[in-house]
């Protein structure tokens, strides 16, 4: 899906060697130019402002963490579209990363299409293609379709809570929460939490 006229690189910052290599292999196979970085520090040493680039960033890194790197980039005015990649347990941190300006986040293990869609969204930023902004009216009409319980679950999701935590909070089973989540995704036309956060902040 890459456009040959729109050349850009993807910094992949990931400390796990296998994940780093496989991710780059996948993106390379799809015609992307990748720059593998095994740590935040290595990224900073390799970073070239002259190259148009976006970034896939693992939040858990030894030394400088992904969150710290994100903060560092913001502080230094380096505006790279960032896709955050995280392990499932770190959703609350990912939510914080989204708030701090990340374009999207992917939970490991992610499917090929999830990865490619996220990278497309990020690269789109480079060429002034804003991610599709859903007009507030439509968001409101979608929200109005949620049941009260679904609204409760949605509120918890936006806080970055895990299914189990939500289940405890609302005193229902995890399975019920999963059911609510899938109906919320349906009604809100969202692929995941990242979409929901984009729509609802």
């Amino acid at each position, binding site marked *: 899906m890459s456009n040959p006229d729109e050349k850009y690189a993807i910094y992949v910052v990931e400390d*796990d060697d*296998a*994940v780093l*290599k*496989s*991710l780059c*292999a*996948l993106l*390379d*196979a*799809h015609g992307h130019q990748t720059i593998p970085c095994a740590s935040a520090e290595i990224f900073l040493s390799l970073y070239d402002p002259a190259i148009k680039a976006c970034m896939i960033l693992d939040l*858990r890194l*030894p*030394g400088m*963490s992904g969150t*710290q790197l994100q903060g560092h980039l913001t502080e230094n005015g380096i505006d790279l579209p960032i896709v955050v990649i995280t*392990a*499932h*347990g770190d959703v*609350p*941190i990912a939510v*914080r990363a989204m708030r701090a300006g990340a374009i999207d986040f992917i939970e*490991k*293990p*992610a*499917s*090929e299409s999830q*990865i490619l869609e996220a990278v497309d969204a990020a690269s789109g930023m480079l060429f002034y293609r804003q991610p599709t902004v859903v007009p507030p009216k439509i968001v409101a009409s979608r929200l109005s379709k949620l049941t009260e319980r679904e609204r409760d679950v949605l509120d918890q999701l936006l*806080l970055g809570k*895990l*299914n*189990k*935590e939500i289940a*405890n*909070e609302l005193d229902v089973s*995890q399975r019920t929460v999963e059911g609510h989540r899938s109906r919320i995704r349906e009604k809100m036309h969202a692929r995941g939490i990242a979409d929901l956060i984009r729509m609802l902040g």
Partner: protein
Amino acid sequence: MTSSTVNLDTCDQEPIHLIGAVQPHGALIAIDYKSRVIKYASANTHAFVGFAPDKILGQPLDFLIGVENAKQLPAFPNETTQPELLKPWFIEFTGSDGKAVKAECLPHRNKDYIILEFVEAHAAPATVWEDELLRRGVISELIKPDALNELADISARLIRDATGFDRVMIYKFAEDKHGEVIAESTNRPDSFLGLHYPASDIPDPARRHFTLNVMRSIPDINGELIPIHGLSGEVADADAKDPLDLTFSKLRAVAPVHVEYLNNMGVGGSLSISLITNGELWGLVACHHYSPRLISSSRLRFAELLGGTTSALLQSIENTNQLRKNIKAEKTAFLIEQQVRSGVPLRDLIADQADAMMNLIDAQGMYLVLGNDIVQHGVAPETPLDFTVLNSQLKDGIATTNELSALVDMNTEQKDTIAGAALLNLSEDGNDYLVLLRSNYHHTIDWAGKPEKIETKDEDGITRLSPRGSFALWREERRNKSVPFDATDRDSLRILRRALFALNSVERERQALEAQEKAEAEEMRLRHALLDAARASSLGELASAIAHELNQPLSAISNYVSACQQEFKNAKIDVPPRAKIMIDEAIAETTRAGVLVRRVRDFISRGDLNADYIDLNKAIRQGIALALVSCVLPNLKVNLSLDDDIPPVLADPVQIGQVILNLARNSITAMENSDVQVLTVTVALDNDYVQVTVHDTGRGISHDAQNYIFEPFHSSTTKGMGIGLSLCRSIVEAHSGRIWAQPSDIGATIAFQLPLQGELDE
């Protein structure tokens, strides 16, 4: 000087014994002890010894009673003695007119004089014999009763039988010296039984005379006062240069105030016998006749004997009663002690035994204070009273008063309800005490006779010196007072107090122990909670770490397979359809594995944050304390540099406790082989963060290791799985904080920050 002389010296200050006159039913002379010369004589000597005073004054005794009689005069010791009524001396000699004189003589010594009193001799062998018989029956009757009032009743009756007086009353003196009529035998329609007399009715000098002079006979209240003259012709009264001390005289004339008192009651003749127990004036037998009544010496002797017997029996009964009361007190105390051992709290026991204790002390109310716990029983004022002033008057742990209102401000309601109190101190600090309350006196006394019925000569209202006036006065004196607490009461109180104090001490110790045990149990519970949480968190962290670690290869597999597929496509190689299906299946399986891992991770999640605004110092202390429980370092020194001024932090105390616990444990393990073993925990404010730094003097963290120590499964110790620091990071990050290793020259330094403005609830 002897003791009786001392008593007399005291009496010298009062004029009652220096009245200088005798009653008309006998005559008195006094001789110089050494020279035996008659120095004093009453004006009526002629009638009783056959010589007018002027005939014998200045003469030796031999002149009056003859040499042989004079030889019979007992050799008195060199001290004051009393006339011995029970050893009569019948004497015969010749008077001035040659007539034979028959008389009974009662001699006694007073300082430098021997006083000889002469009364008409009534003695006849037959009467004495009758008296003997009577005496035998009487004594056996007297020793029967074992109750005070019963003995008093019998004694009054017997004395009236023996003396023939119209009314015989037995008074008992209370500790405050007021008197009560406890027994009466009379042929009159009215009764004085139950009457109380103010202490002032029997003035102190008279009281002393009663003690010294057991028997006092006044055959005719209004009998003439016969003056006693000395050698100079002067009347030997208090105004004289050389007065004669009549303290022990049987014939001593009656003081005018006493004459008035008896006249007011219409009494014509009186006899009183002192009841003396344990050397104290216990009471009086007062015999009243409504006309003059002279009884023979033998009858007097008999009456004195009865009085003495009554005194002895009274003493025995009183002692027995006191003993019984003590035994009762001991029993009550024992009962309480026994039940305390069965685990009933002291406060409940005292409440249970309230009636028994009140009964024992003749109290009407009870007030128990155990710290802040107050129990009331019986009659107690609605408005609580502050008894603490009694605490300053403790003697052997007990304070009593029969006039509480003199010590404590009391309102009308309180004064109406109670008047006297006995406080039993039950703890060293004075916070625990028992108060037994007595009602107003006039609520508790009863008087068989009605004041209106008492015959008195007084016709224009109540006179001061009348029973009715006395009673009214006595009531006035008793306003706001209770029955006083006497020696017996205090004995019982002491017994009760001793037991209760000991029990209360034991109970207090038990309570303190219980409180301590409770505190320890709570401490233990907290520890367990922390340990449980630590275990659960470790498991959660383990699950999280496994999930993370498994997800990495799963991601790689998924990526690689997807990349392969794409590479085939890029190379325009047709993958056989079955291989294509298998590749898709492989990808689907990695996705399924990812979901499974997620499920496990969710199932064993670390759990919710139970965040609250907490005192970080406290959480640190708990964590450190827990880490030290299993610490085996002998020389470990712990420095807690805490800051009491840091504001509360929004955090989960148990989870923060775990962070500290894990860091401290790591430090302790790292210092196992160190010469210096110092663990330092510092808390400091850093802008919007609170920073906690844990420093040790262990082997430290290598520079390389600083990069991965927070990753799971990178244990730097041989123990454990290596998720401790990973867990710390998870917890700190869940609190929107961060954790890191700081380079340090000696040992290791790990620091973490928590935001002051928590973001947990956003």
